[in-house]
């Protein structure tokens, strides 16, 4: 068990270290999030009320789009220098690799979320302060679900020629419940309602997270082997 956790930790550490040195994904993703914000603004026009009403949806749409780019790259770094073979040769339970990658993606997505929230507050003049605690809960649950399925499908599609096309085509339908739940819960959080009002959504998110992570752990080895 300790060995297992250590393996996952090593994968996570390796990815974080590579990311810190290259800053490849993070820089591009943060810039992408900024671009999305501008696009939303141009698409919806200058009416501030309309933007605010659409805010929960825009936030999660932005996160899902950033996730398509960021999560899809999870295993791309492993393609060079035979890293993929190296990963496959790791002794022991392969799902530790999945967990490590999942945590790495989670960290990456949280970084994007923090920036996106700050930008939303800044550009659209929304006071996020009082809702921050509730938002954090929703973001945590939603990001876990997004990353869990995203990491699994990214491992699968990274080996394929039509990767850019297949990854969104597989991930987006699977993310429908996460999107519905998070948007509803975010809306409630921004309106200042207590989390108890949307507890059914949070429970659904938590259940979905558990289901996705368990399936990911159980099926990852089938994706990895040849």
């Amino acid at each position, binding site marked *: 068990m300790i060995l297992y956790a250590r393996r996952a930790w090593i994968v996570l550490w390796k990815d974080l270290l590579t990311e810190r040195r290259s800053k490849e994904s993070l820089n591009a993703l943060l810039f992408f999030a900024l671009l999305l914000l501008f696009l939303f603004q141009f698409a919806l026009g200058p009416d501030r009320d309309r933007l605010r009403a659409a805010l929960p949806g825009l936030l999660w749409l932005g996160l899902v789009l950033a996730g398509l780019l960021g999560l899809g790259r999870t295993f791309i770094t492993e393609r060079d220098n035979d890293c993929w073979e190296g990963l496959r040769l790791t002794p022991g339970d392969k799902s530790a690799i999945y967990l490590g990658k999942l945590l790495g993606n989670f960290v990456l997505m949280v970084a994007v979320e923090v920036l996106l929230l700050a930008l939303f507050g800044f550009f659209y003049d929304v006071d996020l302060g009082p809702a921050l605690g509730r938002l954090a809960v929703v973001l945590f649950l939603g990001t876990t679900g997004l990353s869990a399925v995203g990491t699994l499908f990214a491992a699968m599609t990274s080996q394929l020629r039509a990767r850019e096309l297949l990854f969104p085509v597989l991930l987006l339908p699977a993310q429908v419940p996460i999107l*519905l739940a998070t948007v509803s819960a975010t809306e409630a959080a921004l309106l200042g309602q207590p989390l108890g009002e949307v507890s059914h959504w949070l429970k659904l998110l938590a259940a979905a997270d558990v289901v996705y992570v368990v399936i990911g752990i159980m099926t990852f080895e089938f994706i990895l082997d040849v």
Partner: protein
Amino acid sequence: MGKSWTRALGWLAVCGLLAGLVAGFGYAPREVVQGNVQRIMYLHVPSILTAYLAFGLVLLGSGAYLLTRRAGWDRLAASAAEIGVVFTAVTIVSGSIWGRPTWGVWWTWDARLTSTAVLLLVYVGYLLLRAMVDDPDARARYAAVVGIVGAANIPIVHFSVKWWRALHQPSTILGPEPSPIAPAIALALLVNWIGFTLLFAYFLSRRLEIARLEERA
């Protein structure tokens, strides 16, 4: 499954569907409120039940393939998914045709319409994946994982969409309360359902045969 067996199944399906037509148009009474439009139900409901059966088989085939690594299970999942997508599409199209005169719109973001549409998207994605992976072994493994994720997602999608919006009439057949449906209509539904299941079994056996031949080629 032998060729003659498959052919017999085909004729059985034809008989079942003919009986369904007779039951739906001849035997079942004209519905009081909706009129003849209601008869679309004899196509709509058996289609979705057949689609659920198909997607259940996808899950079975996917899980069994990962456990046993026998190509036959993968063929079952692939064949059932294709047929399931067709029946889901029939469900959505027939529901849309029914919805226009009844609800006044072709499409509405009602809970069950939406979750059925999401179901279709998930399995179209599954078929796209199958079409885009060349290596048969990788294709079978990847598809099995997607098949399992897709099936596990069905209840989650169901509840999320249900809470998101509810406008559809509550489920009468699979609902918890005893069904308020007229016996004649229920019988016509049952006959059609059997006909559709026979048709599904016929399609499946033919599709499995094709898959076997493809693999041998």
